């Protein structure tokens, strides 16, 4: 591969005496057995494995630890759905009574709240527990709220307020009662679908006019109400084009849902972002 080998990083010479050579062979064999089990997707407990290699543990354990550290943060299905973690939620947020959980995404959960003063239901998005200590993620989460707060459009979800600093990171938004674009699309005529996607395109264009790029437009982020009005939701990846301070990315994460990546990966800039947005919109059309 692409790094030159120098005399300083030459391979080690073999052990000089037979005893050392035999010991090295045993550790190497144990290590190979461990790696083979991992390659076969078996769940291998490092402690338990080391106990099966009496006398080698002191040499083996640090090597296995180094191997495991190469993985970085552990893979977890829970990343895709916070709700599976079984975490409860507070009784009230921003003064609203919390009724139930109605959704979960990569960054957090959406709760159904009740505004007793105005006698209306609201949706409250809270940041997932695993992210609350990560400043960059918190910043991006609140960025979603601010990006939404800057605009008002009938086909873009409205935000009512941001949570106070002494409560869990959250914001209160309009409760959109509808069905997903895919579900809605099954019951519509071609002309109705075309009209729906025209409205989505105009809403996306409105966002662009306000220097906001959604970056994760997909069928599950578009809800369709009973009167066939689409609403664009979930601005967790939104980017304000003119503001450097708002470019917030979770380390190691590729923005956007993987299945709907931006298509144009060879160019940069506003045009490429618009092209990518068009690609996502077109993917939504094919799912509608």
């Amino acid at each position, binding site marked *: *591969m*692409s*790094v030159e*080998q120098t005399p300083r*990083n*030459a*391979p*080690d010479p073999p052990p000089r005496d037979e005893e050392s050579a035999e010991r*090295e*062979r045993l*550790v*190497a*064999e144990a*290590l*190979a057995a461990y*790696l*083979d089990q*991992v*390659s*076969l*997707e078996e769940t291998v407990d490092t402690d338990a494995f080391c106990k099966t290699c009496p006398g080698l543990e002191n040499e083996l354990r*640090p*090597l296995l630890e*180094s*191997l495991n*550290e*190469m*993985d*970085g943060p552990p*893979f977890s*299905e829970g*990343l*895709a759905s916070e709700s599976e973690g079984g975490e409860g939620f507070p009784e009230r947020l921003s003064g609203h009574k919390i009724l139930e959980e109605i959704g979960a995404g990569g960054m957090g959960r959406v709760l159904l709240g009740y505004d007793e003063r105005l006698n209306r239901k609201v949706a409250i998005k809270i940041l997932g527990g695993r992210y609350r200590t990560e400043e960059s993620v918190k910043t991006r989460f609140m960025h979603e709220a601010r990006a939404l707060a800057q605009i008002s459009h009938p086909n873009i979800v409205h935000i009512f307020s941001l949570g106070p600093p002494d409560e869990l990171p959250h914001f209160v938004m309009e409760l959109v009662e509808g069905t997903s674009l895919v579900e809605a699309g099954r019951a519509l005529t071609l002309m109705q679908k075309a009209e729906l996607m025209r409205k989505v395109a105009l809403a996306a264009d409105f966002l662009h006019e306000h220097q906001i790029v959604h970056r994760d437009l997909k069928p599950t982020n578009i809800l369709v109400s009973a009167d066939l009005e689409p609403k664009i939701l979930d601005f967790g990846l939104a*980017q304000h*084009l*003119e503001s450097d301070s708002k*470019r917030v*990315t*979770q*380390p*190691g*994460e*590729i*923005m956007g*849902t*993987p*299945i709907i*990546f*931006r*298509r144009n*990966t*060879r*160019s*940069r*800039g*506003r045009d*490429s*972002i618009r092209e990518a947005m068009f690609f996502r919109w077109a993917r939504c059309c094919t799912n509608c």
Partner: protein
Amino acid sequence: MDSATSTFGLVERFKKGETEAFSLIFRKYRRRLAVLVHYKMSPELRGAIEVDDILQEVFLAAAHDMGNFTYQSPGSLMAWLSRISDHVIVDAARYQNRGKRHAEEMLRFRSESNPAGPDPVDSETPSRVFARTEDVQILFKKLDALPAEYREMILLAKFEGLTTKEISARVEKSRESVALTLHRALKRFRELEAAAR
């Protein structure tokens, strides 16, 4: 092996139309594939195209062609992704060479020679953040410092996910020799870790 979050389970779920399963496949393999792609790319290509761009093409192609993928063993998906990445890297290198012949296409953004060009507004890409992430940089630094033979063994075993038997066939050495080289590679890696602390 057949649990819902095993590779087999995720592939089956995705083939049945559960798109969320592909997101999980992506999360499960992204880092391993990113490290492999980093080392498959030449330094010149790395300077011109980001690992992130290659990864996106690879996973897009994988999502599109998953119907043609046949699960044979726990390592077969990674091997398939790795093969796709080979093709994507070759295509990217060809595209890059084409770009050299048409240099005017590279001058879209503002520069000394193109002062009227627009500013790139999306220069902060996820892979740049990924590359800056301290633990990944440290990992690359340590892998770079290893002898080529050691680095290759770690990449094959840890990141490509081959068994020692498969590595043995790939590098045409005995399994015992592969195991010994892996042991020495990890020992050296450990020493580099200790030196870095």
